[in-house]
């Protein structure tokens, strides 16, 4: 049990929960009340003492209500060069008037419908999933029908505008039918300063031969505390790619879980964390190979300056039936300052014998010889460093297929590397 007594402090959240999904909510609530927030020694949250952080920064655990937001604010918040469709979440609640979506896609609020919330991201796996499931204010269901290819990306823009110290709990259910193709960009903006706790759960159900890309960029307020849970079921011949770019925040925890459920499925996870100040970013990924002939690739890279901290935990499970699995995982870190810390744990758990699995992880500095090479050609040291760091980060950015978003991210990374180093 953590120092935060769940009954007392979090009770406003649990008590004001809406009445829809009563069964799912009460099941999750029971789990949450029993588990509580992760304790100090909890293995999964060992390096990320989020309960302590919440206690310090969040004044009241009230669910943030939709705020007044204008279309100007939205226009201002959308990144430059963006071309695509838009979903606006106002403090976690879908705003239909500000959103624009192609006709093929059906979108609705998560009502007491046939949508089985909590069947992909199961509440027993993580206390924050349980908290979200028991008390999310309103959710969103997005469905891409069979054989539909949405060419332009869909930007899910979360506008989190609270009076400080409040909780936002977005809940999204995405379903991509067989042979469907779709790309999402998940970005949150925080127009006002102040601490904020965002606890997001995204469940993605990909059909046979579907292709889903999910890009997430975290560059909102310096004081935001964010827990993001993204879990997906990947069926036969389907492909799922996630790219997570973390640039700021107070404490950020990303849980990304991929369940490979059909043969010839493919799961890709790429991540870049470029941290300064006191930012703490924790990426926990989990790939579960349950069937034969599936493939997973993972590459996470981090550059850490000032007194930032980067945590990486990548788990690969290869079940007994999952013969002929290919699973690759890599994590590379560069520390730039005396006070920066990296905790990394690339974990493999393998029960099948006919597999190819490997993981690698490094922590180090820029190659002195490469630096010297550039300096010898008249590039000053600072610039040379920036160039090499950019090349290091670029390997992750290359996995973004949407050109506009890639340019935007590249710009942010270059700006950060140019100003900082």
């Amino acid at each position, binding site marked *: 049990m953590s120092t935060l007594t769940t009954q007392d402090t979090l009770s406003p959240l649990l008590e004001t929960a809406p009445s829809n999904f009563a069964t799912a909510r009460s099941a999750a609530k029971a789990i949450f009340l029993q588990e509580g927030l992760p304790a100090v020694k909890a293995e999964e949250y060992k390096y990320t003492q989020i309960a302590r952080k919440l206690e310090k920064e969040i004044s009241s655990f009230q669910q943030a209500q939709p705020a007044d937001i204008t279309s100007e604010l939205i226009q201002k918040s959308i990144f430059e060069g963006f071309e695509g469709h838009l979903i606006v979440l106002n403090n976690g609640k879908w705003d239909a008037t500000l959103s624009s979506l192609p006709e093929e896609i059906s979108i609705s609020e998560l009502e007491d419908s046939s949508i089985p919330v909590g069947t992909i991201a199961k509440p027993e796996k993580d206390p924050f999933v349980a908290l979200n499931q028991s008390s999310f204010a309103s959710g969103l269901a997005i469905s891409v029908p069979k054989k539909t290819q949405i060419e332009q990306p869909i930007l899910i823009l979360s506008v989190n505008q609270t009076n400080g110290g409040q909780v936002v709990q977005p809940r999204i259910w995405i379903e991509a039918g067989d042979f469907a193709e779709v790309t999402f960009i998940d970005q949150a903006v925080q127009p006002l300063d102040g601490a904020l706790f965002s606890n997001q759960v995204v469940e993605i159900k990909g059909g046979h031969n579907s292709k889903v890309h999910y890009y997430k960029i975290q560059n909102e307020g310096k004081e935001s505390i964010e827990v993001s849970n993204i879990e997906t079921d990947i069926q036969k011949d389907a492909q799922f790619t996630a790219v997570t770019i973390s640039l700021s925040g107070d404490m950020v925890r990303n849980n990304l879980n991929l369940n490979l459920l059909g043969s010839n499925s493919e799961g890709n996870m790429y991540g870049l964390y470029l941290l300064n100040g006191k930012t703490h970013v924790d990426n926990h990924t989990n790939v579960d190979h349950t069937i034969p002939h599936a493939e997973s690739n993972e590459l996470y890279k981090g550059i850490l300056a000032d007194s930032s901290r980067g945590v990486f935990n990548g788990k690969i499970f290869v079940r007994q039936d999952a013969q002929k699995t290919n699973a690759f995982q890599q994590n590379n870190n560069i520390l730039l300052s005396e006070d920066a810390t990296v905790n*990394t744990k690339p974990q493999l758990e393998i029960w099948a*014998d006919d597999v190819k699995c*490997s993981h*690698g992880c490094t*922590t180090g500095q820029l190659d002195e010889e490469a630096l010297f090479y550039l300096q010898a050609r008249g590039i000053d040291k600072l610039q040379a460093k920036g160039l090499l760091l950019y090349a290091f980060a670029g390997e992750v950015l290359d996995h973004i297929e949407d050109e506009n978003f890639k340019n935007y991210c590249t710009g942010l990374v270059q700006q950060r590397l140019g100003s900082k180093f």
Partner: protein
Amino acid sequence: MSKDNQILEEFTSKEYEHGWSVNYEADEAPLGLNEEIIQWISAKKEEPQWLLDWRLKAFRTWQEMQEPEWANVTYPKVDLQKLRYYSAPKQNKKAKNLDEVDPELLAIYERLGISLNEQKRLQGIAVDAVLDSVSVATTFKDTLGKLGIIFCSFSEAVKDHPELIKKYLGSVVPMTDNYYAALNSAVFSDGSFCYIPKGVRCPMELSTYFRINAANTGQFERTLIVAEDESYVSYLEGCTAPQRDENQLHAAVVEIYAAAHAEVKYSTVQNWFPGDKDGKGGIYNFVTKRGICAGDYSKISWTQVETGSAVTWKYPSCILKGDHSIGEFYSVAVTNNYQQADTGTKMIHIGKNTKSRIVSKGISAGKSQNSYRGQVQVMKRASNSRNFSQCDSLLMGDQCGAHTFPYIDIQNPTAKVEHEATTSKIGEDQIFYCNQRGIDTEDAVALIVNGYAKEVLNQLPMEFAVEAQKLLALTLEGSVG
């Protein structure tokens, strides 16, 4: 496929070679664990008061501790009250030299292939033979004594060199370190003590051979190695136990202290009884091993070949405190049938320019689970430290598991840390290649496994390397993946 199964069958039904036991008259403590037992053991060994106090303090701390649950192993808990904490072969008087040691006891070691008779030795290896709770003989004591090297049983060291024991006991593994270390601190019975004075290079390998003979007895030995400035020693440890249906507990503590420019090499071939093919019986091997490179330019190297034990829980570690100190860990862990191993190392970089290297090779067969769990920690002031870790797993059969849990915690920007791991099986193409050249499948597997483990086996002293290679071939022949 049927041939493979047949070969596997043959292999799994293979008897544990050292499963016999001998009946001798034993001097035993009553069953159970309490302060009286500890006083009984201490009195039996004629220990000074300070050591008894130390034991009791450890015992009281231990009572407040919980058995660790984090390891990736499952086993029925040991009822510590049903164990015997002291069992020793009855000897009429303390043997001064080998001639006075009961020939029956010497015969036990002969049968294990360890000759304690100095004249018969071809190579110079000094052996401390520990049977259940006591050391029965230590060879070459005089030869070593001339160089100022102290090599004797722990009990003797307590009597003859109390100042050294007092200074170093618990200095590397504190009594409160963990559940099993605390238990060991409370009830440890015997073990080896080794002291290499300044500037001395130990001319022969020192070795301890542990043997559990009695039933219902836990073995809790304690080894302490102290290497003074600019000294060198290579230390070997071997162990076997009889085949019994119930599980037996082995909870040892090994402490190594290396002063400036000293080098200690510690090699283990662990071959405790692993349980039968249905997972019945076997030793629980819960061991705490740690060395400290206290002085600058010191070096500690751990090499282990783990083939036995039903459950292994063992993490030989190095604290790299001195600047420019070096820690090494080489391991081959083989699990078969229902064996479970959770083993690895910790490298704690504290000093500047410290280096560590980890090479771990896991081989899983049958229904076994093999885990590597390691930590590389680079502290803030450990600038220019360097680590390279490699942990590979080889799976034989589809019922076993291989797991890797590496923790890498870096707090210094000048550190270079690399970790890589692979999991694979023996390739059909590799076997085919050997077959083509007239090497039958069984030999091919032995060849490939030996090649796979070579990097570690090469680190073993010659005598051990031969034994380890034989053990590997024996353990794995026929397990064609």
